[in-house]
Structure formats: structure tokens, C-alpha cells
């Protein structure tokens, strides 16, 4: 089974971006989301994050996402970077 080996962060707290922090988990995929648009889009952002995590075959992961209005593709890109930095494949900058 795939898993991350260390904590990692990607993205920024700047407008139209999202900061994502991941760490190895033990209780399923646990997501904590802060977003300036949580009321309107919280559900959609959570779904994007959880589906992306699952697409890696991960079953346990702690995720903190601080969203400043990022678009869907940006959310996915930041998460992929965080996961690769956390040990799921080659790292990249971003």
C-alpha cells in the first residue's frame, strides 16, 4: 500500500492560491479545510482534494488546506506537489 513518509507543504497563502500541508496519517483521509469561500465551494474543494488523494491509492493521510480562492486545477497541482515532496515520487518546486 502506498503512503507518504514525511510531512510536506506546497502552495502559498497568497490570493488565488492554496497552501496544502500533508503528513502521514492513521485514521483514513482526514482533511481540515480553511477557505475564504468555504460556504459556497467548501464541498467542491474537499471533493477535489479527497479524490486526488484517493487516485494515488492512499488510504491514510492528514491534510490541512488553507484556500485563498484557488481554482480547481491549482488545488490539484498544489496537492500533487505536496504529495511528491512527502515521498510519493520525485519532488518539484511550486
Amino acid at each position, binding site marked *: 500500500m502506498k503512503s507518504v513518509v514525511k*510531512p510536506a507543504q506546497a502552495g502559498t497563502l497568497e490570493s488565488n492560491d492554496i497552501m496544502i*500541508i500533508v*503528513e502521514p496519517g492513521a485514521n483514513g483521509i482526514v482533511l481540515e479545510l480553511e477557505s475564504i469561500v468555504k460556504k459556497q465551494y467548501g464541498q467542491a474543494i474537499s471533493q477535489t482534494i479527497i479524490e486526488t488523494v484517493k487516485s494515488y491509492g492512499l488510504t491514510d493521510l492528514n491534510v490541512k488546506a488553507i*484556500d485563498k480562492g484557488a481554482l480547481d486545477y491549482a488545488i490539484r497541482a498544489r496537492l500533487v506537489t505536496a504529495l511528491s515532496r512527502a515521498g510519493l515520487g520525485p519532488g518539484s518546486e511550486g
Partner: protein
Amino acid sequence: MNGSLELEVADLDSKREIREVTEFLNSFGLEYEGDLDYTVILRNGPAMVATGSFKGEVLKNFAVNESFQGQGLMASLVTALTREQTRRGIVHFFVFTDPRKAFMFSELGFSEIARIEPYVALLETGLGSIDSWILEAAKELAHLPPNRAALVMNCNPLTKGHEALIRRAASENKAVIVFLVSEDLSFFSFKDRFFLVKESLGHLKNVSILPSGKYMISAATFPTYFLKKDQGLLAQTKLDLAIFAKKIAPALNIVCRYVGQEPSCEITRAYNQAMLDILPSQGIEVKVMPRLAINHQPVSASLVREAWKSADWETVSAMVPPATMAYLQGKTP
């Protein structure tokens, strides 16, 4: 972020750079808090326009030049700092700030834990929160009946005085929680301090011994306790106790706090006084117990440490329970 600005990591070994950061902070009426792990500076050409630092999990020493405010500089600083913290394995972040500046961090996803107007606010973000800590603690304490008494102790190391205080609380209450200070900044490690309390008092059925965690007398709630500086002492004691009274005690069914009288240490005495000032008004009784004296000498952990270092075994054995004695005999100062 503003494209013309350069982000730079300060060299904390350079007296010149530290002086520059200090002068920048001073120009906003802020103090430079030393003993830092990492500092970043934003420059517009050679001129510093913003700075921020961290020590462990705690972000501090923030300042942004007014003419650059509202341009997302705080976001750049916090991004750079938390990225480095994460790289070092830290994923839970605190900031101890002026209540008037707290909104700047709320906008960056921080949640406020408590504030003491007009002095200080404590906020947190990242993985971990006071609510999740309280949930975990509540589970650990599920076997204890409500109307619990609590003690927050360092036990560095456990003396007969600490033991008497805990036994007294245990005899007067159906349930007692001993929160042992988790922060590993005392002479004896948390692991050893915890082991000694368990050894001497673990058999008491109505007493639970838990790590105090990050929300009681920690580097985040109460840095002065470890820094031994008196600056901001009053605000910090009040902040620590506000978190206890408003968040921890109600959620964990704590109605009373026991504390030993403090004859010598100024910081502990200020903390005890703040307890009497704050907790009763929040419905939490405070019971101050006279300090245990042996041969007319008040028992204290600092006295034990001194006696142990000078191999004064007579004093040590008079003041500590057998488990602490055995531990100290097996260890070199």
C-alpha cells in the same frame, strides 16, 4: 506578492543582520525576541520592508512597513516560514501577537485560541488544533466521573511535596487529573518526569496522569515560564489561564484546580496569583495548599536538584519519594 521584493533568509550568526532586524522591529515599537530558529526578511532594494521568524512551532517577531501593508507581504512571510517549519518536520503553527494584528493571521487561515485585551492573542493553524487535543484528552479521561479537580505540574523531579499535593486532591475529590508539563525544556526530560509520577502515584484509582500538551504552560501559551524573563508575564499568565478556564476546563469537566503555595519563584508566584484572579470568576475553584515542610525546610524540586548535584543525599532522601530517590541514585548530574 509584489514582484520587485526579494525574500532573504537572515543569517542568525551575523550580529549585523540581527541588529538590522532588531532596529526594524524597534521602529514599530516591537521588541526583538531572541533565541530564534529562522528569520526571513523582505527587501525592496537594500531596504527591509518586512520580517518574521519562528522558534519551534511558534511564529514571532513580525513587522511590515506601513507603506507596503495590504500587498500580501504577511502571506509571503508566513508561507516562507511555515514551508521551512514543515521541512523541519513541524506542521502545527502558533502565533503570539498583538490582538489588533490578530485579524491579519485570521485572514491567512489561523484560528484564534484566546486573547487578553489589549496585550496578546494566540492563534494556531496547520495540522492539529485545541479542539482535536480536547477530544483526545476527553477520551483518555472517559473513565473518570465529572466534577474533576486538576493540577498542572512540572515535577522536575517529583518530590514528597508534589506527592502530598496530589494525594490531598485525590482524597478530597472523586476524580483528579494531573497534567504534567510536556515541554522538554526542564532539567529532567518529560519522559523521566512522567515515569516518576506514574511510579509513585499511578496506583491511585481516581487519578489520571496526562501530558499537559501544547495548551497549558507550553512554549506557545507561556514562553516566559521557560525563558525566565518578566516581560509580558502578566499577559502570558492570563492567556494561559484564559485557555484553561474557557476551553479546557468546561470540556473536560474540571471544577477545581489545586496548586502548591510558592514561596520563592517569582514566575510561579505570579502564575498562582493570576489563577486566584481569573479562575474563580469563571466558576473554577482554586485551592492553594501550604507547601510541605520537612525538618522545618519547605520541600522544593529546585532544592532537590541542588542537593543532588552536590551529592547531599541526606537532603535528597528526606525530600523525595523512594522512586525518585532510586532514579536520582542511578543518574549522574
